[in-house]
């Protein structure tokens, strides 16, 4: 008995050694920052001068900061269009690409290619595609006699352009997730439904959609969290313009914190954004749960 206890103790000691690097890095670069995030938002930290505790001053200032709320409005508009479209297109694409036909793997690969690109490279390419005079998009539109807008320079189309580019970049990987989800649905469900005379729409409504709920929950959660933290594409495609209509909270926090060095204030903004992400993830969770009880 004693030797087994000794062996286990040795094993535990080695296990602690194995996880030490991970846990130390986790402590330094996750736990400490999370605790500090709240703390910094109550200070006037600006990298150069002395850091003082300023109470809720940052939050008071934030209430009247119209640019801050404008960025929230922008990103909500973006998320409200992007997230449902992302789910819908990925799901339809997943269903289409789940058919077993010759060549389907090639189509999957083509749809997946955009997800490999970095946000910066994709945005750079799309700046050129959306060029008002010489761009491919307006060039193709002109075949149909349509004069395309200056996509990135007009207030009405700038955010739509970002939505288009981010959709192009994200539906491919969500398509793969949906295909994996679809392949996990047992075949006999469809067979028995067919025997009972269920139409294709019924089968989707009562088998596919409910069976895919965990997948949809994952895809929607990830796209909400990603959408509310939109930065790269807005930074490269439009630099937040025209007239701040594509400036996002992360963009503002970056400028406030790292260009103007008002890190205390930027921390307060980041905290409010994190709160918004939490609330929307929670709402999304409730929607996914409530659906369960209906069906």
């Amino acid at each position, binding site marked *: 008995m004693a030797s087994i206890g000794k062996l286990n103790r*040795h094993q535990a000691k*080695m296990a*602690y050694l*194995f*996880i030490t*690097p*991970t846990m130390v*890095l*986790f402590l330094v670069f*996750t736990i*400490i*920052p999370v605790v500090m*995030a709240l703390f*910094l938002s109550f200070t006037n*930290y600006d990298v150069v001068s002395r850091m003082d505790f300023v109470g809720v001053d940052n939050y008071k200032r934030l209430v009247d900061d119209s640019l801050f709320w404008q960025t929230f409005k922008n990103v909500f508009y973006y998320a409200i269009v992007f997230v449902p479209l992302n789910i819908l297109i990925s799901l339809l*694409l997943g269903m*289409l690409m789940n*058919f077993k*036909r010759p060549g*389907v793997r090639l*189509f999957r*690969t*083509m*749809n*997946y*290619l*955009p997800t*490999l*690109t*970095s*946000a*910066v*490279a*994709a945005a*750079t*390419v799309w*700046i*050129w*595609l959306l060029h008002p005079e*010489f761009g*491919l998009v307006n*060039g193709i539109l002109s075949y149909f006699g349509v004069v395309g807008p200056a996509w990135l320079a007009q207030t009405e189309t700038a955010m739509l352009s970002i939505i288009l580019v981010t959709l192009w970049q994200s539906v491919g990987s969500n398509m*793969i997730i949906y*295909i*994996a*989800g679809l392949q996990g649905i047992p075949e006999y469900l469809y067979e028995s439904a067919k025997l009972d005379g269920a139409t294709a729409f019924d089968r989707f409504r009562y088998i596919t959609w409910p069976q895919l709920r965990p997948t949809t*929950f*994952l895809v929607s*959660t990830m796209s909400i*969290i990603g959408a509310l*933290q939109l930065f*790269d594409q807005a930074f490269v495609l439009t*630099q937040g313009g025209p007239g701040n209509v594509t400036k996002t*909270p*992360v963009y503002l926090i970056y400028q406030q*914190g790292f260009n103007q060095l008002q*890190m205390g204030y*930027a921390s307060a903004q980041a905290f409010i*954004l*994190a709160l918004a992400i939490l609330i929307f993830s929670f709402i999304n969770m409730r929607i996914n749960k409530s659906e369960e009880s209906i069906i």
Partner: protein
Amino acid sequence: MKTQPSRLGRSSIAASPAVSYRTRAAAGNALFYAVSIAIAVFMFLPFFWSLMTSLKPSEDIFSIPIRWLPSEVTLEHYRQAFTTVPFGLYFWNSLVLAVAGVLANLFFGSLSGYAFAKLHFRGNTAMFRVLLAAMMIPGIVTMIPSFYVLKHFPLFGGNDLLGGGGNGLLNSFWGIILPGASGSFAVFFMRQFFLTLPSDMMEMARIEGCKEFRIFWNIYLPLTKPALATLGIFTFQAGWNSFLWPMIVLNDPDKATIQMGLQAFSYNYQTDYGPMMAGALIAILPILILFLLLQKYFVQGIAFTGVKG
């Protein structure tokens, strides 16, 4: 290859006398291909267009109506991209950062993933749960405090023991590598894989007097090669494509990554679309090559993120 059996199945059905069924199947097929091709063309067009632009002589680029193919192929824009800015250096910097990220995550991720999956110790589940929960924290929360931690990292970059005086790990590659060196995702991913491996090999090796680290390194780790490949590709892609964090940490132009270089190029040379497209394609190329070589592992990785939900 996988489509073979179902094709046989379909043709045997189609051979049955029901003509209406056959025409419906043909219409379904036609619809499938029409829609799939249209979507694939849309998805691929930006790649095609940027490639064509990068190979066109400048006068072809600005033409109305648009010109689909170059009148003559030139590599001038690629030469320009590499000479106007040090693109080769940026490429190298990104490669170093991405490869270091991959190696660190593969090693630390599998080491602690193995411990969480196979070894018994107090606090195993609790610590693992905390790691897992941390994956839900949005990046924006830790952005500014992580900067603070890097800046005040003791004994580095001219800092004293209390983290004052210098710039810490800012403006060094360590500031990118260390925060992501053992991501929660890597630990979680490897743990799930180690759980699928049997434990009796471990018992046997212990009876033979094998050291714990050797059991991990020589017996279990070689069995996880497919998982390591998937995780490696994932980490490489994330490292290569990351933009905001390197931009915050690295100020020295000589340390800029390819994404930062590309962004600066497209901002500073706003009408040089030829070199811009050449640069964008170069920034995409390594991932594209990896993908074409190791497609299977990419897809497995994403399917895994789907399973965990």
